[in-house]
């Protein structure tokens, strides 16, 4: 990563409090670089999700700045903890939504929708309704929907936290495959050390509330992130270092 390229977005001194008096973030400094997979890791309630919502402009900071390199917010895809699909709409229509809100007709959107559904392995399910799908499949639809506008930045808020372990591992692999194909810059909120090390090129460890960045851990690994990676000394060492960082945060 060349230092001469400014980050896609810079957060400086972000602060956010809520009406009930809790201060979620205080003095958060964070850069998101092009093409990276950045995990925000921290104890629950540390403001990771709040940081993500601020980046997506779903919520306004009380202090600090969010600077986009190009001066304006690029196209953003957002994946929530729940699949957050419209239960009354077919899978096709759910993925169509972002395009539809931009005025793209069903016919014009068709090929792009099939493309992203194919990408997440759900090509045959376009006519199905959400309730007919498993939790993991619904989450894939949610990811397809987030990708349909070809976002420059993908924000994921603990997307796999509610899924069982097997589905979660499978979706982790799928996400890596998608990353390899699309290279979309991704910010991923999680509270799982293993998940963050497996997926990320960089991990930002949050302090307890009010959250800011305690430490950053680079996961520079050039090889394929397959099952061998999961048992490699490199992976184990990174997990240990990340766990230690998290323990330190919790001890403060």
């Amino acid at each position, binding site marked *: 990563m060349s230092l001469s390229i400014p980050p896609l977005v810079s957060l400086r001194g972000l602060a956010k409090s809520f009406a009930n008096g809790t201060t979620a973030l205080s003095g958060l400094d964070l850069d998101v670089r092009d093409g990276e997979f950045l995990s925000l890791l921290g104890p629950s309630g540390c403001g990771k999700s709040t940081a993500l*919502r601020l980046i*997506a*402009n*779903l919520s306004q900071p009380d202090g600090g700045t969010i600077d986009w390199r190009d001066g304006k917010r690029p196209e*953003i895809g*957002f994946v*929530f903890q*729940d699949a*957050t699909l*419209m*239960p*009354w*709409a077919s899978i096709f229509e759910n993925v169509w*939504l*972002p395009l*539809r*809100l*931009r005025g793209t007709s069903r016919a014009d959107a068709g090929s792009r929708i099939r493309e992203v559904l194919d990408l997440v392995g759900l090509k045959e399910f376009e006519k199905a*309704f*959400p*309730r007919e799908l498993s939790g993991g499949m619904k989450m894939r639809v949610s990811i397809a929907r987030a990708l349909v506008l070809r976002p420059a930045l993908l924000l994921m808020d603990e997307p796999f936290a509610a899924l069982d372990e097997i589905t979660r591992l499978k979706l982790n692999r799928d996400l890596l495959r998608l990353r390899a194909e699309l290279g979309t810059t991704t910010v991923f909120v999680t509270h799982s050390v293993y998940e963050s090390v497996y997926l990320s090129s960089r991990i930002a460890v949050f302090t307890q509330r009010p959250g800011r960045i305690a430490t950053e851990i680079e996961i520079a690994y050039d090889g394929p992130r397959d099952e061998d990676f999961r048992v490699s000394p490199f992976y184990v060492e990174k997990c240990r270092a990340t766990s230690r960082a998290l323990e330190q945060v919790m001890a403060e």
Partner: protein
Amino acid sequence: MSAERALPMLVCAAVLAAWETLVRWAEIPPYILPAPSLIATTLITDWGTLSGSLWVTLRITALALALAVGIGVALAILFAQWRWLERSFFPFAVVLQVTPIIAIAPLLLVYLEPGTAVLVCAFLVAYFPILANTALGLASADHNLRDLFDLYRATRWQQMRLLRLPAALPYFLGGLRIAGGLALIGAIAAEIAAGTAGRGAGLAYRIVEAGYRLNIPRMFAALFLISIAGIAIYLALEAVSRLALRRWHDSTRERGA
């Protein structure tokens, strides 16, 4: 036929048989309690008069329900778009709802043609569950989905059409089923208050009229028709509801297995 359906029918048949036997055995005169067979006969012999009145009542009920749907949903949408509108006008909606219709009817009859007054009464009874349920439904759209719409900078109208209205549909349909029965009740109550005779007379007037003439079998026959109409309205609206929600709502999901 499943036991689930056979059982209530069996009970119904037993009650009718007991009723018939009691009337014949105790020789109860028909002006006190007519036997079911006599009510059935009356239904056939008086069908000309009764069917005309049934049609009048059903027409008013349907019209009132249609008005209740149109105005109730429109108000709910307006209230959802502009909170100050809701704060200003919802109290009036509640006042109209909680004042018993039988008390409002005489006043309406002073101001309006009897036919119109009956229609307005039926509407006043029926609109509130639709307004209240739809308003609740519009406010109940999933907050993450609302965030998603915000993220993609959806307009208010897009948010209403693609998110809030579909989310409100199950609530609306619940209100509709209640309103269907209430529209009939409102129409009947207002007809009794109006006392319209002649060609425009509804079933309720037939009951009042039969009461004056001590024609008790006809009273029962008219009552029977009103019950059947109420049941039919409920079943029809339930069918509409199931049909509209069959693909996606949890209420239509097959259970068990």
